[in-house]
C-alpha cells in the first residue's frame, strides 16, 4: 500500500552539471518498492510548483542486516522540481508518495536479462539489477549517453555482476552512436532460441526503436513510459498511453496500468514526443 513519507535527505551527490543522486531516509518506501515502480515527489510545501512529479526508485538502500533504510533517486535537472532536487542539501525534506505503478516482471534463469537505458532512463534499472542478481540471472546493461562523462553509476551495476555495453553520441566511450548499436550486435551474436527478457527505459524514440528492433528478432520488450502525470493514483486521467488491445486502441493510465508496458502493445505513433 502506498505511503506518503516526509523523507530526510541523507546525501546529494552531484554527478555532473545536470545529473545527481539523492539518498532519502525512507525505510517504508524501500520495504515495499518493486523494480520499475515510482514515487510522486514534492520538494516544497507551498503551492508553486503545485503538483508532484514521478521518479523511478533508483536504488533501495539497506543496512548490514539487510533491512531497508531508504531509497535513492537519480535525477536530471530539466524543470522546476528537478532543479529543486538537484539543489537539495543533507537535512532537507522531500515528500514522497509511493511506491506506485505496475512493476517489471523479473526474469528467472535460464532466461537472460537485457536492460536498455538511455540517459536518465538508467533510473529504472538499479533495483531491477539487484533483484535479477538475487535470482542469479545473467544480466546485461546497454546504456547510452551523450558523452563518456554522461554515463553514471557504472560501478553500481558492475558490483551487481551486470555486463556493461556502452554507447555515446560522440564515441568518447563504448560504441559511437546510440544504444541500439551494441544492442543490434548482441542480437546478431545471440541465437534466437536463447531466452532473453528485454527491458527499456529512456527517451520515447529510443524505447520505440528498441521495441521494434526486438520485435524484428521475435522478442518482446517491457518499456517504462514516463508521461506527464498529475496524481500517480488514477484520479486525474492525465498520464494516458495509447495501447492496442483485443477491442481496439484505448488510452490507459500509465500510473495504474504502467509505467511498465509491453512495448509491442504501445501505439508509438500516437504517443507524442
Amino acid at each position, binding site marked *: *500500500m*502506498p505511503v*506518503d513519507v516526509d523523507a530526510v535527505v541523507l546525501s546529494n551527490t552531484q554527478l555532473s552539471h545536470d545529473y545527481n543522486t539523492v539518498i532519502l531516509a525512507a525505510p517504508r518506501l524501500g520495504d515495499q518498492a518493486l523494480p520499475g515502480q515510482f514515487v510522486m515527489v*514534492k520538494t516544497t510545501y507551498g*503551492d*508553486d*510548483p*503545485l*503538483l*508532484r512529479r514521478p521518479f523511478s526508485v533508483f536504488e533501495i538502500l539497506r543496512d548490514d542486516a539487510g533491512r531497508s533504510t531508504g531509497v535513492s533517486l537519480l535525477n536530471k535537472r530539466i524543470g*522546476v522540481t528537478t532543479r529543486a532536487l538537484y539543489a537539495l542539501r543533507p537535512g532537507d525534506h522531500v515528500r514522497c*508518495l509511493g511506491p506506485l505503478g505496475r512493476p517489471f516482471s523479473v526474469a528467472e534463469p535460464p532466461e537472460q536479462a537485457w536492460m536498455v537505458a538511455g540517459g536518465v532512463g538508467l533510473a529504472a534499472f538499479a533495483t531491477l539489477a539487484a533483484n535479477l542478481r538475487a535470482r542469479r540471472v545473467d544480466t546485461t546493461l546497454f546504456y547510452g549517453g551523450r558523452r563518456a562523462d554522461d554515463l553514471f553509476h557504472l560501478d553500481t551495476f558492475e558490483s551487481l555482476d551486470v555486463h556493461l555495453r556502452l554507447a555515446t553520441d560522440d564515441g568518447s566511450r563504448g560504441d559511437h552512436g546510440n544504444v541500439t548499436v551494441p544492442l543490434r550486435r548482441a542480437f546478431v551474436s545471440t541465437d534466437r532460441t536463447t531466452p532473453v527478457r528485454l527491458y527499456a527505459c529512456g527517451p520515447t524514440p529510443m524505447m520505440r526503436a528498441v521495441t521494434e528492433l526486438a520485435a524484428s528478432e521475435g522478442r518482446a520488450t517491457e518499456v517504462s513510459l514516463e*508521461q*506527464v502525470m*498529475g*496524481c500517480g*493514483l*488514477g*484520479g*486525474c*486521467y*492525465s*498520464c*494516458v*498511453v*495509447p495501447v492496442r488491445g483485443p477491442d481496439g486502441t*484505448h*488510452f490507459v493510465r500509465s500510473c*495504474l496500468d504502467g509505467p511498465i508496458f509491453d512495448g509491442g502493445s504501445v501505439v508509438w505513433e*500516437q*504517443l*507524442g514526443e
Partner: protein
Amino acid sequence: MSVDLSVDVGGLQLATPFIAASGCFGYGLEYGDIVDLSTLGAVAVKGLFLEEREGHPPTRIVETPSGMLNAIGLQGIGVRRFVADKLPGLRDCGAVVLVNICGSTTEEYAEIARILADADGVAAIELNISCPNISKGGMMFGSSLRGTHDVVSAVRRVTTLPLIPKLTPNVTDVASFAVAARDAGADAVSLVNTFLAMAIDIETRRPKLSNVVGGLSGPAIRPIAVRMVHECRQAAADLPIIGMGGIMTSEDAIEFIIAGAVAVQIGTANFVDPFVWSKLREGLTDYLHRHDVPSVSALVGTLDTTRGHTA
C-alpha cells in the same frame, strides 16, 4: 463541546462538508486502498456520458503558476458500465456517491438520469454543464441561461434524486445561472468548474495541450471562486451552494463556507495530497472549537461586511 460537521445540501445529508470533486478522484475506487471512502462527505465520480469516451490525446495537463490546466476530454466508461462495474464497490465502501453526468443533448442528460434513477447507491446527480474541454455538451449548455434551464428541467422531470448543476465560471454573471438553475428545479448548485485558459510553448510556438485550450484549476483561481460563491449566495440565499476552486487546506474550505457554501469540493489538492481528507476534518473541527461555533451549518454564509474589512 462536540461540533457537528454534518450538512444538508438540498436534501442530501452528508457527514462532513468535504466532497471529492468530479474529474479529480477517478471513480473513487482508485483511492479505496488508501482512503476510507465512507469518511468523505461524498465522492463526485468522474463525469459520465451515455457511452464510453476515449478523451483527448496526451498532453492532457500542464502546470501553471499555483495551478494546472487540464484538457482530459471526459474519458470515461459510460453510465451503464459505471452502474455495473463501479457502483457496487462504492456501495460496499459506504461511499456517498454523487454521479456527475454530461450529455451532448438534453435528451442524453435525461437518459443517463433515468438509468441512474433505477440504480442502487446513487445519492445525487451532479449535472456537468460546465466542462470547457469538449466540443458538444458541457459548457455549451452552462454558458447560456436557456441551455441551463433546459438541461436542469429535462433531468428534473425524470428523477427525484437531489439535482446539483455544476456551474461554469466562464460567464459574465454566474449568479444569474444559479438563479436559472434553481428556477428550473435544481436542489443545489456546485461552483466553480475550471476557467478556460491556455499555455504556449514559446520555443515550438505550439500549444502545450493537445486540445489547445483547457481548464485552469488550483490555488490560482481560489479568490475568483470565492467571489463567485459570494455572488450566488447574495442572489439566491435559499439555494444551497457547494463551493470549490483551489481549496488546499481547511482554512481555504472555511473561507468558502463563510462566503456561503454549505459544502465544498476538493479537486487539485487531492492530486498533491491524497491523505488530505483527515487534515481537512481536523482543521475544520479545530476552527469551530476556537470560534465557539457549534456546527458547520452555523458557519455557512456568516460573512460580516458590516464592520469594514481586515487586511
